[in-house]
């Protein structure tokens, strides 16, 4: 048996077995759950060689499975994040009901994502895509609140995307007679103009939905925030990257071969930038951490999409680097929110505050992730952002630079809100009992957060596989010095040397911190956050002095004209209008048997009347 088959079968069988093991024994179930992600991951990284394929045929469709160097980058995200989060999930799900179905969907979606990366033909690509979609859908509705709204919205948008993709696939097949991705890429330049536009647009819709691109993003906030946080890490970190993967693989390779490609790139890049800006603004306005992170994910994917669309070497490097990094820090943050929610029972900033002393490790992980998210050196986020800016400037997209920078700056607002809302501020008595999350939850967070740090100092670790992957999809090999040292360089030869920066900054930082801390520890004591200067008043225990309502109200007032127009509303109106039309349409079934009989006669008369048009 081929290793790829084995891996996929372990995923599938593991999912089913884990589900049924839950009926027998909880520990067995947990162990099976971790194993059925861990084992395939190990098998995959040890035994599957990139660029070696197997052919098989199902139902008359020729399929080709195997991983490209390019897909390998994403498999790193999927499996890496999957394995780490699976440990977290065991602890997160302890004591909840329907754990079995959670594990089932978890394993299945990880397997499906790997399947997407493995499939080199459209049929299996689509199959895995849909499995991924419905398994993640079942996660979205897992909690059972607002399923009819959020769940259906997610699935409808996913279906729109998937069907657009399916349409492109069948059109492709009708033209090329083949489902292999390489065949489409080979044939594409010779197609008609109409197809040059139609096929990329359809694929764009398909992948744009999953990667939450601007007009198609409305499902994301609800879906991300409604999913159990253990899965949202994967959802936002890995699953949305499948859209990016597809976009790079198909969009960029396709449209780089056609004359109209330039315009496509522009449009997508602009959409990505708008996604980033609006996503950020909306994130700033949220009071719920899950929603905030969800919008933030939308915005971050906006950067990635922009990078992908620009499509120069550096831009692509940055997009892929950011993809990996986004998986790291957003995984951490969602896990942190999950830990907080598990410990306190809420994820709302207006309710929780001052957890820093209760959950210091969670705070540390969040802090590092936030710094990475904000793109502040020395953590990895900066490297990605830097490459993005450089590539945008080098490719003359000046306005996009401004937009991305704006969104990146405005991101500080919600970054601060996240840290302040949960960890800083008043320590209320209500949360005095809160304890640090179990080690099984904290350690994965710390591992991921440490990953952002390592990538900040040594981006070369990940940039070299990325470069190999990019060569696989037709980019030229980048010069070696991108990663030999941790120097990053733009096309003008301006450079940023990372290691000395990191060391220097940390040396200074440590010095000052130690200076302040040890110098004053002898005669410094901790006072509670009630002990503040508030006009001489002594705030009592029950008096809540936390500032968390209308947090960025002045800023939001300033950007109010932009925020007022919600795409969501238009979609809702559209949906409601459609349903009204549908409702009108079904009134044709009046319920009166005689009317139906009259329909028969009318039908006959119409047919007879138009018989020459119809049958002539």
């Amino acid at each position: 048996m081929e290793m790829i088959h084995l891996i996929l079968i372990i995923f599938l069988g593991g999912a089913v077995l884990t589900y049924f093991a839950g009926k027998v024994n909880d520990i067995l179930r947990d162990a099976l759950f971790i194993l059925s992600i861990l084992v395939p991951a190990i098998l995959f990284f040890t035994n599957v060689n990139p660029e070696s394929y197997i052919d098989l045929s199902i139902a008359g469709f020729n399929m080709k499975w195997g991983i490209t160097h390019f897909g390998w980058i994403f498999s790193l995200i999927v499996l890496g994040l999957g394995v780490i989060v699976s440990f977290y999930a065991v602890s997160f799900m302890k004591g909840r009901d329907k754990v079995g179905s959670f594990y089932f969907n978890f394993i299945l979606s990880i397997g499906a994502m790997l399947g997407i990366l493995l499939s080199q033909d459209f049929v299996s690509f689509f199959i895995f895509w849909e499995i991924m979609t419905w398994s993640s859908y079942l996660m979205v509705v897992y909690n059972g609140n607002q399923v009819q709204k959020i769940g259906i919205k997610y699935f409808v948008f996913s279906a729109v995307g998937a069907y657009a993709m399916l349409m492109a696939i069948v059109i492709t097949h009708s033209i090329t007679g083949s489902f292999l991705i390489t065949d489409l890429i080979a044939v594409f330049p010779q197609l008609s103009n109409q197809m040059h536009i139609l096929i990329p647009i359809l694929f764009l819709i398909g992948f744009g939905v999953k990667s939450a691109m601007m007009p198609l993003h409305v499902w994301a906030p609800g879906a991300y925030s409604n999913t159990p946080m253990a899965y949202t890490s994967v959802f936002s970190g890995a699953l949305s990257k499948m859209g990016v993967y597809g976009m790079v693989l198909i969009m960029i390779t396709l449209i780089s071969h056609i004359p109209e490609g330039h315009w496509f790139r522009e449009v997508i890049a602009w959409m990505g930038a708008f996604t980033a800006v609006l996503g950020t603004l909306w994130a700033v306005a949220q009071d719920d951490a899950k929603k905030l992170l969800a919008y933030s994910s939308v915005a971050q994917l906006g950067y990635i999409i922009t990078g992908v669309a620009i499509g120069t070497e550096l831009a692509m490097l940055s997009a892929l680097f950011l993809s990996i990094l986004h998986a790291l820090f957003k995984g951490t943050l969602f896990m942190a929110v999950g830990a907080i929610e598990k410990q306190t029972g809420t994820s709302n900033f207006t309710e929780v505050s001052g957890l820093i002393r209760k959950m210091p490790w969670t705070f540390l992980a969040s802090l590092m992730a936030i710094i990475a998210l904000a793109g502040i050196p020395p953590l990895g986020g900066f490297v990605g952002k830097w490459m993005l800016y450089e590539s945008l400037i080098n490719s003359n997209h000046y306005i996009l630079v401004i937009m991305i920078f704006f969104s990146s700056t405005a991101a500080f607002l919600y970054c601060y809100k996240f840290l302040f809302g949960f960890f800083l501020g008043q320590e209320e008595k209500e949360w005095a009992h809160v304890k640090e999350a179990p080690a099984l939850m904290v350690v994965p967070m710390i591992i991921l957060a440490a990953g952002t740090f390592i990538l900040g100092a040594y981006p070369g670790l990940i940039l070299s596989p990325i470069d190999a992957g990019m060569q696989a999809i037709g980019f030229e090999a980048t010069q070696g010095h991108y990663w030999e040292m941790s120097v990053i360089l733009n096309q003008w030869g301006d450079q940023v040397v990372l290691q000395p920066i990191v060391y220097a900054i940390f040396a200074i930082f440590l010095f000052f911190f130690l200076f302040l801390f040890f110098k004053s520890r002898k005669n410094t004591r901790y006072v509670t956050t009630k002990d503040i200067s508030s006009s001489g008043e002594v705030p009592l225990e029950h008096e809540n002095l936390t500032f968390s309502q209308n947090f960025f109200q002045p800023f939001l007032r300033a950007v109010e004209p932009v925020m007022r127009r919600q795409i969501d509303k238009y979609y809702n109106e559209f949906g409601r209008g459609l349903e009204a039309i549908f409702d009108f349409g079904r009134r044709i079934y009046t319920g009166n048997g005689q009317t139906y009989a009259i329909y028969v006669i009318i039908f006959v008369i119409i047919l007879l009347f138009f018989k020459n048009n119809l049958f002539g």
Partner: protein
Amino acid sequence: MDNSLQYLEIGFYGSAIILILVGLYGALMKKSLIKIVIGLSIIDAGLHLLMISIGYIKNGTAPIFSGEDFVVAGNMVDPVVQALVLTAIVIGFGVTAVALSLVIRLYRHHGTLKIDEIKNLKW
């Protein structure tokens, strides 16, 4: 062609069509269930008449072979349509019977025979 026979033929077809139209009127316009059933039966009757008329040949003999009386095949009326009509009549009878039993059920259930008032199931 004999005039009277032509008129007869027109009479056959005409009355068949008139019957069908009358039946349609009854089935589509009348509000009473019973009348609708009657209308359907009249349509059936019209159709049967139409079929018979198609098989009719002037001066034809009955398509019956009995004993040694050998009849020229070309001169007998089409036996097939007659067989069809017989079958159709039987079927029509069955349908009418089911329809009438349903009417009884409907009347018991709804207390009315007006089809306008029997529309619990709609949309």
